[in-house]
Every structure is written in structure tokens, then in C-alpha cells.
């Protein structure tokens, strides 16, 4: 009896050990992966990115001339580094996946670079802005289409100082995103002769800022700079209004979203913010993107970084079309990317796979829309920003 049973279980174990792992079978359809935050606080941007990448894939698959049809695997990194490493491993270890459009949250992106390198999976970061993601290593697999926070803060400081503002209060959330922006903006602002009166860090889930803002009110700064994302940006702006703070409000790429305006209504008027890349709606491709996005009836808006996910997906698919579904070849091909036309302007990867973004676009909210600064009534002097005569 016992012997029989033991042999049985030995046999069972043997079977388990013997089963081979699924072989990669990618003939006509090629798998690529999208990774971003689909749940939790940053879901809005993650979903926007996912829809945009999905849009790119659908448009490509609709194209008759294409050699391959693409299958977009979508994974949720919850904006948590450890989960990020898990899903990155999932994608990297799955040899049928050729390349990835990965990560909005910098902490996750920085956590996963080693994993992608280990598995040789070429990825293009579509949203994370921390410089170290590309410049902190020399892994050929890692690329990024959006600029780093360095670029936008440099331009930001130049513009606002040129407007004649003198004093700033900086408020930033204590995530990598906010802290990074705080660091670089302070650096460039002081270079350009601006003065930082105070610097407040706030929790990413904080709700009440009246205490801090009362202190700000005491300081009477010309400008309040905010490094962080839309939800807190909205709260700050509306609580500033509640306390009757008259200072100009400016933000980073994190608040360039339709929901910022939608949530604030008239108060949003005059808010300045910057994103790294050409003004989408001005490029022919960008117009096309927005129209197509609308045509596909996605539940969520593309948000600030949707366009980048779209571009990243296209870069990858073009590369695969060119060199076939092979990670090494794709990595090599992506490295060659130079002046590749895209809806955010031509893409050129430097030695670190970082897109040398030529353009940073300044936006200002005018009549409930994000308007490119140069075309705005404010630039033309038809309207006045807060505190400008």
C-alpha cells in the first residue's frame, strides 16, 4: 500500500519536474507589453497611457501593409516598486514578449531597469521623469521618449523670471516626482536670479493645505510653484482661492491635464505649466492622434502623457517591422533612432537611450483650455497674469 502510494507521488513529482515551460510561438502576431498604474491614486494617467498605447496598436494592426499584427499585453504596476519588479519579471521572462512601453511612476521605473536588463527586454519609458532612469545606468535596453524633469524646469525658470516675477514659494509632494522637481527648479530658478522664500513638502495623500497656505499668505510671494500631480494641484489651487491668496500659480507636467481644469473651473484661469515635448495639437500627427483617440471612445482621457505612450508604442512597432520580433535586434534598432518623426516632435535617443527633447512647451490656462503660452492672450499682453501690471 505505502510503497504504491509513495511511487505514485514520486511519479507525480517527476511529471511536474518534467513539464517544459511554454515555448515562444510568435509567427504572425507579436506580443508587446504596456506597464503602468491602472489602479490606485495614479490610475488616471496610467489608464490614459494604456488607451493611447492601445490606440497605436489598433491603428497599426488596421494597416494592411504591416508585416506583423501586434498584441498588447497590459499590466498594472500599482505605482509600487515591488509590484513593478514582479510585473517586469513577468514580461521579461515571457520570451514571446518582444518589447515594452513601461512605467509612469519614477520609483517603479528606476526599480525595474535591472530586471529589464537582466532579461534583455527593450523598453521605452513613457512617463517617468526621473533623470536617473536613463542616466543612472548604461543599459542598452532602457529608452525614454519623454524628457526628464531637468529640461522642463530649466525652461520654466527662464520663462517665469523673464516675466518679471521675483519671489517664489515652492510646494512639492514628497514623492520622487515632487522632490525631483523641487530640486531642479530651485537650482535653475536661483541661477536665473529668482528668490525662494519657502519650500514646503506635502504628503501625496494630504487633503488640507490651509495651514501651509496661511503661512504662504504671510510671505506674499509673487508666484507659488507646485511640483506634483493633478489631485493635489487642484486642492492647492482651490484652497489658495479660499484663503484669498493672490499669487500667480504655476505647476509642472503633472498638472497639465483636462481634469485639472475640469475640477477647478474658473479658478484654473491663468495657471502656468510646462510639459516636455512639442505641443501635440499643433503637430499634424498630434491632431490625428487626438481625433483618433476621440473616435475610439475610450472611457478615460489620454492625460498629459498619453501621447508619449502612443509614440513609444509606434517606435517599438516600427522597429519590429524593420528587424523582426527579436529582442536583441529591436534593442539595436531602437538605439539607432534619430530624428524619428512623431506626434511629439522628432525623437532622437542619446547614448543612454534618452530622447534629447528639443522642445519644452509652456502652457497657460485660458478660458478653460490649456493654451500654448506663445499663442495665449497673456503672452500677447491682452490679459494679465496675477500680480502683473
Amino acid at each position, binding site marked *: 500500500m505505502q510503497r504504491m502510494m509513495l511511487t505514485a507521488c514520486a511519479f507525480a513529482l517527476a511529471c511536474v519536474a518534467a513539464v517544459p515551460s511554454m515555448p515562444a510561438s510568435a509567427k504572425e502576431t507579436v506580443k508587446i507589453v504596456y506597464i503602468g498604474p491602472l489602479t490606485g491614486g495614479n490610475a*488616471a494617467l496610467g489608464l490614459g497611457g494604456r488607451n493611447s498605447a492601445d490606440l497605436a496598436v489598433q491603428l497599426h494592426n488596421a494597416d494592411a501593409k504591416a508585416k506583423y499584427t501586434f498584441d498588447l499585453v497590459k499590466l498594472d504596476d500599482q505605482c509600487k516598486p515591488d509590484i513593478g519588479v514582479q510585473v517586469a519579471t513577468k514580461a521579461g521572462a515571457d520570451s514571446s514578449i518582444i518589447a515594452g512601453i513601461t512605467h509612469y511612476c519614477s520609483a517603479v521605473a528606476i526599480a525595474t531597469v535591472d530586471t529589464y536588463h537582466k532579461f534583455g527586454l527593450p523598453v521605452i519609458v513613457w512617463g517617468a521623469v526621473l533623470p536617473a532612469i536613463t542616466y543612472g545606468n548604461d543599459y542598452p535596453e532602457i529608452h525614454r521618449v519623454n524628457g526628464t524633469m531637468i529640461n522642463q524646469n530649466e525652461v520654466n525658470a527662464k520663462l517665469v523670471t523673464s516675466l518679471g516675477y521675483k519671489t517664489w514659494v515652492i510646494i512639492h509632494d514628497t514623492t520622487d516626482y515632487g522632490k525631483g522637481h523641487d530640486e531642479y527648479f530651485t537650482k535653475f530658478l536661483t541661477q536665473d536670479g529668482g528668490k525662494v522664500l519657502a519650500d514646503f513638502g506635502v*504628503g501625496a495623500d494630504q*487633503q488640507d493645505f490651509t*495651514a*501651509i497656505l*496661511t503661512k504662504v499668505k504671510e510671505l506674499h510671494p509673487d508666484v507659488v510653484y507646485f511640483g506634483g500631480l493633478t489631485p493635489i494641484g*487642484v486642492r492647492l489651487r482651490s*484652497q489658495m482661492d*479660499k484663503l484669498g491668496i493672490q499669487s500667480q500659480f504655476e505647476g509642472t507636467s503633472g498638472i497639465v491635464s483636462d481634469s485639472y481644469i475640469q475640477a477647478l473651473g474658473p479658478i484654473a484661469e491663468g495657471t502656468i505649466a510646462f510639459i516636455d515635448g512639442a505641443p501635440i495639437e499643433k503637430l499634424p500627427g498630434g491632431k490625428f492622434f487626438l481625433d483618433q483617440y476621440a473616435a475610439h471612445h475610450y472611457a478615460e482621457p489620454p492625460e498629459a502623457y498619453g501621447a508619449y505612450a502612443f509614440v513609444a508604442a509606434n517606435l517599438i512597432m516600427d522597429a519590429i517591422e524593420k528587424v523582426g520580433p527579436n529582442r536583441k535586434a529591436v534593442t539595436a534598432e531602437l538605439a539607432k533612432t534619430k530624428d524619428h518623426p512623431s506626434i511629439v516632435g522628432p525623437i532622437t535617443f542619446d547614448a543612454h537611450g534618452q530622447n534629447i527633447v528639443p522642445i519644452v512647451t509652456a502652457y497657460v490656462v485660458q478660458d478653460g483650455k490649456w493654451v500654448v503660452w506663445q499663442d495665449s492672450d497673456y503672452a500677447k499682453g491682452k490679459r494679465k497674469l496675477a500680480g502683473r501690471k
Partner: protein
Amino acid sequence: MDPGVAAQYAFNGLMLGVIYAMVAVGFTLFFGVLDVIQFAHGDVVMAGAFVALATSLALHALGIAVPALVVIVVACAAGLAMALVGALIARYLVLPLRAAPAFNTLLVTLMLGSILRELVRLFYPNGSNPQPFPRLLPTVSKNLGNFTLRLDSVILLVTGIATIVMVNLVVRRTRFGLAIRAVAQDSDTARSMGIDFERVVLVTFAIGSALAGIAGVVYGLYYNEVNFDIGLLLGVIGFSAAVVGGLGSIYGAILGGFLFAALQTIGSVALPVSSAYNNVFAFAVVIILMTWKPTGLIAERPSERA
């Protein structure tokens, strides 16, 4: 410090405190009757805010624009809806787990909280983004030096305090309140005295949750913005306030709520270090308080006889 500014801090603190207190009272009521913690309470506040929001939009669509009327309807809608939710939670999630260790209730309500969050995020139009909350109250403001006092804030402050007082009266003065307190003291004896235990629990949860719903409305009207993820932190702070004050005591909960608000205000403006430490400060003080008064500032019950 400039008196105007000081007044501003004080007022902001009070506003915050009222919201916390409204949440904390719910926690303390639930604990009173069942010795359980309803961890989704913060998300009930959030849900209340969104019900209010939806109602106000509906009214707007119907062309009803009398602010006063709208406010009242909206508040009632949120209160009633959450009262129902609370009763349902008690009936189908809390009471069934009475036999089990109290902490299993905690896990269930924890999961319920994340479900509420996800439901709003996924099924409220564009729910993963912050939603504007209509300014339904007169926003005329008075500037006294550096002190900006807005009528809507005052109204909210008064309303909040009034609601808490009402709940307190219900518990202290009415027959039903007597039943609640009886159950809180000793549920078995209360039962033997012919009190319908289950009914008491359901109604208590309804009352507490209605309070949370109204807290949601106050929140929305004060900040003019609601987001699906405000619940977790509100819940934790409400819980902390209730415990610091002393579970089972309404006055304790109120005290705790205002105390916590004060700590956060001090933490973000009066500390030499970065204001980002305000939570570090607040919770550090909480730990010290608990060490000093292990059963809360207003002790829960007389020390049990051995």
C-alpha cells in the same frame, strides 16, 4: 505672530477638526455597541460626498437652482444613502462575524473600503480624477487684516457642530439612545432586559454612517473638490481621533478630532523642520499620548473589577 494670521490658523484648524470629529464619532458609536472597528468608515465619507455630488448635478439638470434648497436636498440625500449603506454593512458584514475574532470584522471592512473606492473610481464618470464640487454656499468673504473669513466656511463649521450635537442628544436624551448606551454597557444584560439587540446595532450603524455622509458633504463644500481616494486617510485619522479620545465616548471622539487637527496644523506651520514632517509629528504625539493615557483621554469604562 500677526493676530489675523493666528486667527486664520485657528479657524482652519477648527474646520478640519469638525470634519475629523464627525468621522470619529461614527467610529466610537460602532465600537460602543459592538466593540468592532468599521474600517471602511472613511470611504463611507467619500461615498457620501459623491452621492451629494451626483445629486447636485441631477438637480442642476432638472433646473433646480435655489442654492439653499439644493444644499438641503443634497445633504439629506447623502445622509440617508449612507445611513442605508451603514445599516447594510452592519446587517450583512458585521453582525455575521460576531462570533469570530473582532479583527476579522476589521479585514472585511478593510476590503469593503477598497471596494467602495474602486467602485467610485471605475464607475463614476472619469472617477479616477478629482471631481469639482459645486460651490452651493454664499462665498462672500470678510477680510480682517490677514484673516479671510468666508461665509460658507462659517456655515459649514456651524452645521458640522450642530450635527454632532444632535447625534449626541439622540444618544444621551432619547429612549433609543438609552438602548444604545445599555447595549454599549453590557449587551447581554441589555438583551435580557428585552432590548432588540440587532435593531439597536443596525440603527447605530445607520446614525454613524449618516453622520459620515454629512461629513462628506461638508468636506465637498469646504474643499470644493472630492477625489475617490480621500477615504483611507480620513478613516485612519478618524479612528486615531476616536481612540485617542477614548473609544466609546462621544466627547472623547470630538476632543480627539479637534486635537488631531490642532496637531496637524502645528505640525505643518510651527515646526522648525520641513512641514512634510507634520504627520510624523502628529503621530509621534499620538504615541506619547497613548503611553500617557492607555485608554484614551476620556477613559472608555471604569477599570473592570477582577
